[in-house]
């Protein structure tokens, strides 16, 4: 089980996103009589597969994959087949972009390979399919994320509050929640 293999397996699931990248483009070839120009920095919108291999020493994980909500379960299945285990599930509230990001952390017992799967969902109506049938441990992590962010994990057997009081109707980790 190597990083390359799991990368390949997950590659097709990763979403393609239009992102803005700045890159240095060499100056157009000098026309006759003109001096060779300096390379120029241009901003460009490109389509990119959202699968990264970040620098481990800096980030603490090896593979960062962004998938659509529908593909979360498929990626989890792939990871389980490759003997990964689930470390945690959590959310991040990107209030400015009006989105909630769900982050799944996976790790492997024998190979040093941490994989992060992330997906974004609409903040007003956050819904992500559950992976609790694939990873039984996800059951509680998803319940916790539902407590804190109000994310509905469709197909989850029981989303009643786990850490919050049983009658809690608030989601404290949302950025607009004030105690």
């Amino acid at each position, binding site marked *: 089980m190597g990083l390359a293999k799991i990368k390949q397996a997950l590659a097709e699931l990763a979403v393609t996103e239009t992102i803005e990248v700045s890159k240095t483009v060499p100056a157009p070839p000098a026309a006759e009589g003109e001096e060779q120009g300096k390379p120029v920095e241009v901003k460009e919108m490109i389509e990119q597969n959202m699968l990264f291999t970040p620098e481990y*020493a*800096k*980030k*603490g*994980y090896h593979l960062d994959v962004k998938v659509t909500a529908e593909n979360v379960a498929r990626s989890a299945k792939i990871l*389980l087949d490759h*003997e*990964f*285990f*689930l*470390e*945690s599930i*959590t959310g*991040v*509230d990107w209030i400015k972009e009006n989105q909630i990001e769900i*982050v799944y*952390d996976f*790790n492997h*017992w*024998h190979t*040093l390979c*941490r994989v*992060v799967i992330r997906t974004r969902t609409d903040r007003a109506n956050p819904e992500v399919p559950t992976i609790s049938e694939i*990873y*039984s*441990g996800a*059951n*509680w992590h998803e319940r916790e994320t539902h407590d*804190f962010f109000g994310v509905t994990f469709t197909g989850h057997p029981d989303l009643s*509050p*786990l*850490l*919050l*009081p049983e009658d809690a109707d608030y989601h*404290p*980790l949302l950025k607009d*929640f004030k*105690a």
Partner: protein
Amino acid sequence: MSADVIDKSLETFVLNLGPQHPATHGVLRVKLTMDGEYIVHAEPVLGYIHRMHEKMGENRTWAQFMPNTGRLDYLAALSYNHGYAMAAERAEGIEVPERAEYIRCITVELNRIASHLLWFGAFVLDLGGFTPLLYAFDDREQILDLLESVTGARLTFCYFRFGGVYNDIDDNFITGTREFIKRLRSRMPMYHDLVTNNIILIKRLKGIGPISQEMCRRYGATGPVLRGSGVNFDVRKHEPYSVYPEFDFDIPVYTDCDSMARYMVRMDEMEQSMRIIEQGLDKLPEGPVMAAKAPKILKPAKGDYYCAVEAARGSFGIRLVSDGTNTPYRLKLRSPTFSNLSLFAEACQGMLLPDALALMGTLDLVIPEIDR
């Protein structure tokens, strides 16, 4: 009466184990559906001391969150301090001086022994033996005295800082630690004779509460629970951090998957921690204990960072999301016992109540860490 006439709901009853129960160590509640003394279904109910540390983290500066980390797992507070300090250092790119790293490892391992000693005592107490608890506490007190002389606190140490440690250790600590290790080495055979080899204990733990590897994977169990199931996974070796690569130590692994295996893993880990501490004291380099260039106010670059350490109960992970300001944007604490406890419901099905409690004891639960 034929079998189908019997009302199934009358055959079982619900037993409320906790939140105030001698075996749940804190305020865990387990709703047990019992058939006589057999457990049909178990449902842990959490959240009795949920304090929303993660939200607190979003409302204070990076440095101000440090005391909170010691209050997750109050029995191994230093591992959690270490994890958080490392995560923030990774985000900010702070280099920690070598002496500080050695001091961190020595104190964390001392704390690990203290935690395992307390677990040992409390576990035997779960099984009905009172005396080993007090012997273990006697030894644990020595560790707490040592750590108090360095950190100033006995439980919530809050000793690490971004870029190093708060205080340097002194000669008293070094000689004291060496003496303690000598003392504990001579006490370990006593513990084994009194408890490990005791026929009653063997009968209660051998083959009881099996947790398979496959189950560990599905639930994400880590730490001694996983190592008792025969998986050689320890963050200290798997993902070497701090100065652990400098030390020669083994990861105890037992393949029996039962309560005895988990018990033995922890007992052996104490010996390994002692080895690490001895080597750490031998190799301890001179030098500063705080990075010279450590900024007073942290403002890590935008992005997210993950950092894991091997705490006494398993892999403690921390995910930081920074938006470039002096407060964390999001701070996720991955607590090992949360995952370890989640497998309890499945593992204890069909077990007898006292066996299930023995199983729960070997999970080594610290409720504030689960509830956060």
